[in-house]
């Protein structure tokens, strides 16, 4: 840590870049760079009626959108997008907008404490299951856990954000020889990221995430990819979609969506093809075959086994439709096919993903405008660290159950809520003697923890996010505190570092050498150091402090050039697929399609305004609904406002029916995001959680096949009004309730 610079010099540095943007650099009162100054020179954030803007990074999901937060007198007032950040170019999604209600959420955990498992109380009190302790004691606890247990008895479970913590913990685990941290996130699970990555590596032989150039494609076939909602980087993809439609060199883009239930993305499609869940792979292969034929190309081995009639039958769409669609795809100057969550969450998911990539190869768009690229690797990232697949989580749970793990550290994820109950994560936690949660909110996983050491909220934190996909440039989004910590919380990174530095026990010695960083910021600086040399960034600096200042001022660092790489087009088309139908679980009458609520996602339920933001397709607020086709409802004698129970072999869930016109009659859909048992007054005991119904089947890439369940539906005889923004009278007619 070099000579501290005064806040004034700091602003001078900042003003250099300030010409381009009104964003002031700064760190809020939490900054370690602020040296005390007399009150005659008050810091600008204390001036009456004057707003200060701080650039940081959104942590509502792992996309790493840049934010600029307007603050006034030490309060965060409004979240705005960072115009310069290549990921979102100044735009934000609803979740990003409402992140302030997380910061000022009344249900945040306000102090570190010892917690009795299962007790839904989070502050000291008579008969409360929570005993507040000092941060010193907290750090001691962490230090003990790290030093007294054997390295292989220690496990870290982290979320998909922030990356700097993941990197730090990785260093820590390597230092003490503990197993590498596992990261998990429901979004990753519902996107089946691993499947896509594995498909890419098997087809292209390169690691990393493929990126799809939607903006310049003429025709996009999206197989279950809800890229306007929660898939990878929604804001960036929405921007791309706008370009695809109205500012497209290839003319107004034509979007075809293949899915059993019309998602928000599907609602924007020009053609929505309701294929039966499980038939995705067959459909892709059939279309591939037809495209090859209509382009008069020699039929590549990849599509040799495709049977159009069988596919049409399996998908329950007329084969004529497939022919027509294939024609559309074949004639298009720039055709692009995207494999997405639902399609990959089948036993044939990997095959489907590979087939889609093959389809792109067939029309030769690999590495071309409007085609498929490999996403650039983020700066200072050794590789893209994907969230754990279902298989990895199952292995991890197995490890927990075996009792080998003595101390488990959990940060930034809520597997008890997000993982299918069938996997038994909660039961596994019971086998772990010591569970330490760093959660800022009283979520289901923290409920099972022995210690809760709340981390700062994202807007109170330092950090960075290595952007996985969404921008053409290589982007490292930087976080800085925009306000002083609202409660008695501590940065997890600092806690770990402090614990590591306690000269205690065997691990202690190694650690303090291995992790010689004085604190979180010092660690981040040390990581940024490697970028000083890199001239390709849109700013550079002679020495690290200035660089860090710019980094904070601009909310990150990114390259000016397009860093996407064309995937090697080797023998992509020479692989063969057997085009088999997917294996299904359960004996119910209906296919079950769980989907992530575009508004709440996995962690939005505790923010009242997100609860009141209507779902784009159903306009439902504040609760869970079960989507059922009106004909089916008619047949089963189910009315609006009826509460029904959906039952799978694994479990059941109850919610109010929404007669959804755009879903297959043989399919039932349910949003994921509600159904919390704890997690604050706005989320608690509200709605139902579809993951309770899911099974444990994995696809070839090891991802959960959440689309493979067949479920039963039972009437409960109860009714409950669903909060809809729409007036059902006007939208569904006078007899609608």
């Amino acid at each position, binding site marked *: 840590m070099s000579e501290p610079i005064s806040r004034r010099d700091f602003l001078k540095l900042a003003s250099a870049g300030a010409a381009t943007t009104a964003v002031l650099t700064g760190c809020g009162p939490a900054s370690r760079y602020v040296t005390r100054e007399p009150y005659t020179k008050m810091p600008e954030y204390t001036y009456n009626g004057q707003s200060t803007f701080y650039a940081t990074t959104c942590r509502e999901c792992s996309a790493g959108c840049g934010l600029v937060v307007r603050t006034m007198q030490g*309060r965060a007032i409004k979240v705005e997008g960072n115009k310069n950040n290549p990921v979102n170019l100044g735009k934000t999604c*609803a979740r990003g907008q409402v992140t302030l209600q997380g910061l000022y959420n*009344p249900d945040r955990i306000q102090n570190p404490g010892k917690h009795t498992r299962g007790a839904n109380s989070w502050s000291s009190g008579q008969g409360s299951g929570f005993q507040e302790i000092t941060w010193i004691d907290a750090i001691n606890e962490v230090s003990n856990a790290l030093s007294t247990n054997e390295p292989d008895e220690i496990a870290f479970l982290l979320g998909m954000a922030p990356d700097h913590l993941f990197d730090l913990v990785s260093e820590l685990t390597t230092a003490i020889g503990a197993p590498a941290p596992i990261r998990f996130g429901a979004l990753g699970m519902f996107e089946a990221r691993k499947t896509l990555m594995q498909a890419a590596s098997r087809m292209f032989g390169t690691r990393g995430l493929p990126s799809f150039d939607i903006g310049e494609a003429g025709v996009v076939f999206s197989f279950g990819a809800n890229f306007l909602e929660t898939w990878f980087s929604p804001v960036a993809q929405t921007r791309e979609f*706008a370009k695809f439609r109205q500012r497209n060199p290839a003319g107004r883009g*034509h979007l075809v969506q293949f899915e059993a239930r019309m998602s928000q993305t599907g609602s924007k499609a020009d053609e929505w093809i309701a294929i039966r869940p499980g038939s995705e792979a067959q459909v892709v292969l059939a279309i591939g075959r037809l495209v090859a034929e209509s382009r008069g190309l020699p039929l590549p081995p990849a599509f040799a086994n495709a049977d159009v009639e069988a596919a049409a039958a399996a998908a329950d769409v007329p084969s004529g439709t497939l022919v027509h669609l294939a024609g559309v795809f074949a004639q298009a100057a720039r055709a692009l096919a995207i494999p997405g969550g639902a399609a990959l969450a089948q036993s044939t998911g990997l095959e489907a993903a590979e087939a889609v990539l093959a389809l792109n190869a067939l029309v030769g768009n690999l590495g071309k405008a409007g085609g498929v690229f490999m996403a650039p690797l983020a700066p200072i990232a050794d590789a893209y660290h994907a969230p754990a697949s279902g298989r990895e989580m199952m292995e991890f749970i197995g490890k927990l159950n075996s009792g080998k793990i003595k101390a488990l550290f959990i940060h930034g994820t809520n597997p008890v809520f997000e993982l299918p109950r069938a996997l038994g994560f909660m039961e596994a936690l019971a086998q772990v003697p010591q569970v330490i949660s760093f959660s800022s909110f009283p979520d289901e996983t923290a409920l099972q923890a022995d210690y809760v050491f709340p981390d700062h909220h994202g807007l109170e934190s330092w950090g960075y996010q290595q952007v996985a996909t969404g921008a053409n440039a290589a982007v490292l989004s930087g976080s800085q505190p925009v306000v002083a910590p*609202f409660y008695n919380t501590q940065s997890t990174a600092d806690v770990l570092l402090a614990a590591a530095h306690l000269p205690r026990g065997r691990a202690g010695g190694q650690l303090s050498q291995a992790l010689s960083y004085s604190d979180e910021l010092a660690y981040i600086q040390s990581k940024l150091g490697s970028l000083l040399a890199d001239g390709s960034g849109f700013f550079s600096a002679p020495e690290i402090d200035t660089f860090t200042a710019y980094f904070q001022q601009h909310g990150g660092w990114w390259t000016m050039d397009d860093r996407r790489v064309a995937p090697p087009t080797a023998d992509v088309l020479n692989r063969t697929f057997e085009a088999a139908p997917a294996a299904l679980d359960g004996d119910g009458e209906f296919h079950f399609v769980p989907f992530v609520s575009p*508004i709440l996602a996995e962690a939005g339920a505790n923010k009242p305004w997100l609860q009141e933001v209507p779902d784009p397709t159903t306009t439902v607020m504040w609760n869970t609904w079960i989507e059922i086709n009106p004909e089916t409802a008619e047949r089963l004698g189910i009315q609006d406002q009826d509460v029904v129970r959906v039952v799978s072999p694994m479990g059941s869930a109850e919610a109010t029916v929404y007669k959804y016109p755009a879903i297959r009659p043989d399919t039932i859909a349910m949003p994921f995001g509600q159904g919390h048992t704890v997690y604050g007054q706005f989320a608690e005991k509200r709605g139902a959680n579809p993951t309770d119904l899911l099974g444990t089947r994995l696809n070839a890439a090891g991802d959960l096949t959440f689309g493979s369940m067949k479920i039963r539906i039972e009437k409960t005889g109860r009714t409950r009004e669903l909060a809809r923004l729409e007036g059902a009278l006007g939208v569904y007619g006078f007899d609608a309730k």
Partner: protein
Amino acid sequence: MSTELELPMFTNTSEEDLGGRWGMVIDQDICTGCQACVAACAMENNIPYVGEKDAAYGRSLHWIRIERFWQDAFPEVKMTPYQPMLCQQCHKAPCEPVCPVFASVHSASEDINLQVYNRCVGTRYCSNNCPYQARTFNWRDYTDTRRQPELTTLQNQLNPDVTVRRRGVMEKCTFCIQRIRHSEDAAKADNRPVEDGETLPACAQACPADAIVFGRIDDPESRVSQAARSARGYHQLEELGTLPRVTYLKGETDGHRG
């Protein structure tokens, strides 16, 4: 306006071609209904949430809502293009003359429709007379920390530039006039005209698809004016002659296919 008042106005001086000062264009073809505008609006304008019960009863206070309808039935079912609906800032606003206490008045300088909260007595005539149903009413005290203690922390984020409304008051979209004013002051400070795109309402600022364009429509060169001239442009309920300030670009389905 003031000049118009020099001589008594016994007749209507508003001309069809009288251009407004601020205007908006919403492209329904690229609006993905993601609700970012809705959330941004709520965060910027201190709009309280009303809770599940009232929301279910049509009392939510969204200043901007995204409408959509269905056509045909499965499998041909199609969703009509998402249609963000907000106060159209009519030049001839039906809500204005009916207010008995001048709580709904026309701003001469911005040529938008203002709601004077402290003057409003809550007759709700304006909302009845608004063809766009763009006005929302504070049915209860949704911002009272005595009634809702949980608000005490949440209210740290209240925007000091926007009044917090109490029960019995009508409210509606203001085109984020606090931002317009701010940029006008800033421009005046270093005496220059307000640049195009310098001031954006929260919705336009957030919109990931950039489907909402905002700016001066009395400046033919501004981005919004150019967008408004699009062949796809239309006004909501044009036939009523309310002269809305919001132009919609209809969601087109491309020519050669479906």
